[in-house]
């Protein structure tokens, strides 16, 4: 018996009523906006049976420059048993861009979070090895932020010894 999206959303509403800020549908995809402090609880709840969202398909960030809640974290979960994709979003403050790391739940969150840290400068609490992934150590700024100019040049760095 295949589980429907509505069932999952109802269960989420029941268990995390005050933590869920908004649920909407866009272009056929369900979007669930949650409070950033409840992220770990929500994903652990979804990962467990019977929902079995065992895959973290994708993790990324969007920079809404000019808003107080500037950074939006976007998580795509996928369940192999029910064949449903779910998008979970949460907003972070510009002054304090930090969120719990998902490395304890999914192993591929390790690199994904390192990438987001590299590109946006988001701090992941509980990440075992938060280091830049694509850029080199000593790179100044975070390239995918909207206030990073497209053609900015970087200063020279010293050769590693």
């Amino acid at each position, binding site marked *: 018996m295949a589980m429907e999206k509505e069932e999952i959303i109802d269960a989420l509403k029941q268990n995390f009523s005050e933590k869920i800020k908004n649920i909407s549908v866009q272009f056929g995809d369900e979007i669930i906006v949650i409070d950033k402090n409840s992220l770990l609880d929500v994903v652990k709840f979804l990962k467990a049976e019977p929902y079995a969202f065992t895959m973290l398909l994708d993790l990324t960030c969007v920079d809404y420059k000019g808003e107080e809640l500037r950074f939006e974290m976007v998580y795509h979960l996928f369940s192999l048993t029910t064949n449903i994709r779910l998008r979970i979003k949460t907003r972070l403050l510009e002054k304090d861009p930090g969120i719990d790391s998902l490395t304890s739940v999914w192993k591929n969150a390790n690199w994904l979070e390192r990438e987001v840290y590299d590109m946006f400068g988001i701090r992941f609490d509980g990440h075992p090895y938060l280091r830049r992934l*694509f850029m080199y150590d000593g790179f100044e700024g975070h390239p995918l932020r909207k206030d990073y100019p497209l053609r900015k040049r970087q200063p020279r760095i010293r050769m590693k010894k």
Partner: protein
Amino acid sequence: MLNMGPSHPAMHGTTRIMLELDGEKILNAELEMGYLHRGFEKTCENKTYFNLLPYTDRLNYVSPLINNLAYVMTMEKMLGIESPERAQYIRVIMCELSRVCDHLTALAAMCMECGAFTVFLYKMKAREFIWDVMEQTTGARMTTSYIRIGGVRADLHPDWRTTLKKAIDETRKVLKDIHGLMSKNKIFLNRTRDIAVVSPEFAINYSWTGPCLRSTGVNYDVRKAHPYLVYDKLDFEIPLGERGDNYDRYMVRMKEMEQSLRIVEQCMEKLDRDSSPGQLMAKGIEPAEAIKTSRVKKVEERIKLSPNLEGAEKDKYKDILFDGKKYIVPPKEDTYTNIEGLISHFKFFMKGHGIRPPKGEVYFSVEGGSGELGFYIVSDGTDEPYRLHLRAPCFHIVSSLEEIIRGHYIADVIPTFGSMNMIGGELDR
């Protein structure tokens, strides 16, 4: 301590592995990447939706058409449009051929690194025949930009059946040869059997997709799970592995290529009607003459277009492109001869006027060469994406390498890395 790469022949050019060794045994490994990072996402955020298409060719440079498709299908989901049936079959043919190319290249590199240079050359030979088909259809071998929003750029070449048949036959022959050379080859088996065994739980936890996930026995293929294009009308199987070791990853790819060729053959049958007989390019009046005539009267004659536009004549548009002026490049015949055509041409290409999807965000994925290839696009209503993110399949697979090779020998790194099919273009973006 040992440093493997970045300029090591088995590192595919762009990755560095730092190994901590005890004799030849790996105690610890750390991957360093980013050597091919060129800011794909940042660049795309500063390009219009139409202009960024060629950048997607460069992601997975072995199967560019699937990358085109993933981006274009995401946009089509956002715009709510669908391509004509003929275009969908053409897309499937091209994508399956790309998948064969992708697997051929991955396995060619893997076998060569295990010492089988003959196999490498055989596979490159087969790929050459497939690329002939692509060259004939798209006009380019690698940087195709062929699949466009709403359909495809041009119709198939009048002579496509012969070339495609030849490519399929040659690839089958090569696959048979390779089965004979490799599948029971003792040296190859020793290098791959029971090396780097991956359990289904491990693979799912790392969000593996594609042939690598299927080699562990998990049946997940985007083409079956979330059918797109005409895949639900086609008959094909999903080969699965049992043990999840290097050899299974090799075997799943070999079987998948056979299935892909089956799909292509079915599409060939379904496309029974050839496009309007092509007298085409050579005949007709010169564009300059047509422009002159259009100043006094409507141009009725056929216009001689540049050979680059072969297959994209106005009378083929209904077969290959979505019927809606806003989203497609207007036919050149119109652009040359009437004012509406010229205006819509400018409107399409002018900054701030091109394709402007509604506000919102969308995620769509297709089955790429090495797994689920998805695009996440956030639109703010202008003609440039506010944010574009690529879900690269091999990113997740390669991220598990550090853990997989721990406890193995240095020599095992090479077939393991080869069987993962790392593509620098999409890994580093």
